[in-house]
């Protein structure tokens, strides 16, 4: 827990390892979620993944104001409010001591520093499941390529053992990084959120030019599935979706497009990290079906 993050390639920050992951690529997989992301999408489902460092998250409803966390915190980052304890994020070093101390599970640590060996030990536990199902390993995030060297080491180790590898990327990394990674990657889930550069900048904190350029290059050399998170009021109009489908059709060729309906999970998590997200309605079944038809009309049946 008290290990500090070193600028080395053999360790990185992981915020979750999900076993029996069945919706992140072929077969039964283990998905390794790496922390840190270059984008700041306002709807993000995993806001605790934004920063690369481990972070404490607080469920203020569960806090009973017992004060134990205050007394163990080495940097005096915690104070007791009237309803719940609070964290001064500038002071917090992410050591995790308060998480251990809390008797009410109000605190949890998003992100653990793990070595590549430690990650692989988890990954190898389910090899038989991968073998029997045609599964493997998926790197997700955050943005897995944000810890490029760490990600590369994990993927190399997977390929050394002949495991199928998948990455889920937002595409917002330099082509050099992407290129290296692709050498050890069998399948790429590639997020495209908006085709309009200005809207993309507005919603995600960065322009989409690098992303779209990378998408084209990836599609040239690796199997790619485009994923579109449907964000109410941002990109879930049929025009915005049609634009993306059109881009896929003309620039990427016959690749699969997955529309991911919005869910509200991220909002709760944002609150726990003292951030704000914009509450939105989820899309109805019929509406979703309509969007799928828009894509299907443009691309054929690959939705």
């Amino acid at each position, binding site marked *: 827990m008290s290990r500090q993050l070193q600028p080395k390639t053999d360790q990185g920050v992981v915020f979750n390892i999900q076993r*029996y992951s069945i919706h992140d690529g072929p077969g039964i997989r283990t998905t390794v979620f790496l922390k840190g992301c270059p984008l700041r999408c306002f709807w993000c489902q995993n806001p605790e993944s934004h920063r690369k460092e481990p972070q404490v998250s607080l469920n203020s409803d569960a806090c009973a104001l017992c004060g134990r966390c205050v007394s163990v915190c080495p940097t005096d980052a915690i104070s007791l409010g009237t309803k719940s304890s609070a964290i001064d994020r500038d002071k917090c070093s992410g050591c995790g001591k308060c998480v251990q101390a809390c*008797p009410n599970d109000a605190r949890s640590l998003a992100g653990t520093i793990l070595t590549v060996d430690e990650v692989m030990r988890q990954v190898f536990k*389910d090899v038989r*499941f991968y073998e029997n199902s045609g599964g493997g390993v998926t790197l997700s995030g955050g943005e897995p390529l944000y810890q490029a060297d760490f990600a590369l080491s994990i993927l190399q180790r997977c390929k050394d053992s002949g495991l199928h590898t998948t990455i889920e990327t937002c595409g917002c990394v330099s082509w050099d990084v992407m290129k290296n990674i692709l050498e050890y990657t069998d399948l790429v889930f590639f997020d495209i959120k908006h085709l309009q550069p200005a809207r993309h900048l507005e919603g995600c904190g960065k322009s989409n030019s690098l992303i779209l350029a990378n998408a084209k290059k990836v599609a040239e050399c690796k199997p790619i599935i485009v994923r579109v998170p449907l964000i109410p009021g941002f990109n879930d109009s049929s025009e915005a979706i049609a634009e993306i489908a059109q881009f896929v059709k003309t620039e990427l060729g016959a690749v699969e497009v997955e529309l991911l309906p919005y869910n509200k999970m991220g909002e709760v998590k944002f609150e726990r990290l003292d951030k704000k997200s914009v509450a939105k309605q989820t899309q109805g079944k019929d509406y979703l079906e309509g969007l799928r038809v828009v894509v299907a009309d443009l691309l054929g049946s690959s939705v």
Partner: protein
Amino acid sequence: MAAKVSNKTVSVKTETTRGQRIWGRYLEKRLSPEAGKVSIEWPRLITAGHRENTALPAVLRKAKMFEKQCLDVRLTIEDDEQLLLGSVALEPWAWRWNVNWSGRDWVMQEIASGDLADVVNEEDVAEVKEICEYWKDKCADDIYHAWLKENGWNDFALQQCEPGVCSANLWATASTSPGMEVADYEKMLRIGLKGVIVEVEEELQQTDVVEEGSVRKRDFLLALRIVLRASIRYAERNAEFARELAATATGKRKAELEKMAETCAWVPANPARNFQEALQASWFVRCFEEMDQKTPITTPGRMDQFLYPYYKKDIEEGRITREEALELLECYRVKMSMTRYFVNKLVRDFASQVQVTNVTIGGQTPDGKDATNEMSYLFLEAAMGTRTAHPTLSVRVHDGSPREFLLKAVALLSTGIGFPAFFNDTSMMASWSQWGVPLHDLRNYCVTGCVMPIIPGKTGYSGWMYINCGKAVELALNNGIDPRTSIKGGVATGTFEDLKTFDQFYAAYKKQLEHIIEQTWPKTKAAVVHVASESPTLFDSALIADCIQRGKSCMAGGGGGHYFNDLLLPIGQISAADSLTVIKKLVYEEGKIGKQELLKALAANFDGYDDIRRLCLEAPKYGNDEDYADAMAVDLIAFLNDCAANMEGFLGRKARMLGLSYAMHQGFGRPTGALPNGRLAGMTLNDGSVSASQGMDVEGVTALINSAGKIDQMSDFCDLMNVKFHPSALKTKDDQVKLLALIKTHFQHGSKHIQFNVIDKATLVDAKENPLEHKNLLVRVAGYSAFFTALDPPIQDEIINRTEHTLS
């Protein structure tokens, strides 16, 4: 979504099958005031049969009691669309009471306490009392208890302990029963009961009265003849009944009834000639088993195997369509789901039907080929169509099982019905081979009860006892004294303070287990002997190998040595293993909890000891693919296996360990105090035998499966693995394919069994609050499925709390 007018609004489906309609109507009757009462007619006839034949030896008297029911019981048919005749339930959802077994004392108590008011009709109360009075000192329960008393022994559990705390051999009591055998249906269909009567008579002719053995043998054979003849008469009565109904019926129904009459006039007396006859005869067997014995666990075995030849012939000769066969199977499912056993309130509350009937499909033929056939698929489809709880299905999996078949089984699972369960042929057969059963018989195994392997037509009676592994932890911590009652239920192994190392503590724990076994097993065996002479199983004995030739019932050594199942059934072994891990790590290795501190915390049910409980809960637990905790479970289960191997069974056999929980994890959980694994007093113990303690497997299903794989299941008789799945992990075909890979990987580890509950938490919580809207909701409880709303709250909570293995 259509507006709901009232609770009574029933969604109208355009296309329903016959089975769905019958079952739907039967379900509706469940809520009517006249439903769900004790059926007085059975105990009345059983009592009359006994009273009229007191002069006869027990075995013949028992045959006469059977005959009385066959000849005099009222004939009914539960629905105008039903195609099968013969009843085990005379009124809708009636409780069936085999008074010759038990009930005499607890029924009187429950009448006095008012607990029976909603179950017994007002006008029947006087007769119920009179029946109870008659059976005083005559029913199996009383005979057994009188015998215990004569030996100076307490009830069926430990000598100084309360009944049902440390151990239980339930079959001698109200809750469940003997019938674990599976009759030779194949033979019955092939030669008919008349053919069996011929065998009995040949044996009779060769059996001269010479000495005691031959006298008893003749009595037994005469009894079989009475039973077989009465069985045939019962079928004939049903044929006459159908003919009467046909006389006033019109159109299609008239033709159906005529066909039914013709069928019952022919089988089971004669060899079955077609599929309907084969299925009707099979259903009659179930009726006869009910009339003969208290048999909620008897199962028909490998139905896809013995029915298939009749189906195939009918199809080839154009006598039946696939749809018609399916319709009949659906009728059979409804019939199977109608029985309810009258048991005491305790059991009534936690098990809605107290019944486990199990049909095994798939697997291998005796010569090692894949056995899957069209009938195997039809059984899956009939279950998908009717969604009845019974019979549950067990799918045998081997390397040559067709993928299509297995995926269809997974698709049935994903409907949320709670079955099929999957069994691993390789591992199941490996353990039997230790006991010298020949390969062609091994390949023919089926499953009875929750997970008990059995050779159809061969395996005889079982003596079995449950032991409470959780209570043994309490005894080891307290020098053999049960802290709940201060009774010395265990053996003195030293105080917790005295036990200086974990090894010493573990040795003390093992001694407590051994003590419980030593105290209970001889009584269990003696009970088998007494019951076998007083209430021998007759009908099934006619269809179990060697019984006729030996002149002994399948309870008393018919069937032969290889096939006897004497069982040790440990309950709470994972709760115990986790508790041992906590003691080892936190008390002995790390000293984080003091011995006295732990004892106090447990005595206080952790009240005021939140920190200690937190430490206990956070300590490593079995089921997370972590060797430290898994090793404890591996070792404890191996030890239990050795314990069984040291128990002398009947006919020179050693007992076997069978891992399951039935509903005993609740029964034993109730009197068991707080345990070091963080479990609170009175809560259920772990369910299944290799699944994790409730909610303790936090690393996901693959981790749980890897943990279970570390246990040497190849040596166990069988184990039970219960996994709960959220429906979102099983929605698409792709998900189902992955689940199949999961099952196969589980089996590669040598594991024997896996079953799934596919239901989401929200649905269950809602069902608990609004039972009326979920009366159809089936869940897997242990080896059986039950109506969720009919379960009592602790079991409901437990099912809700079982870890949901799912994404997001």
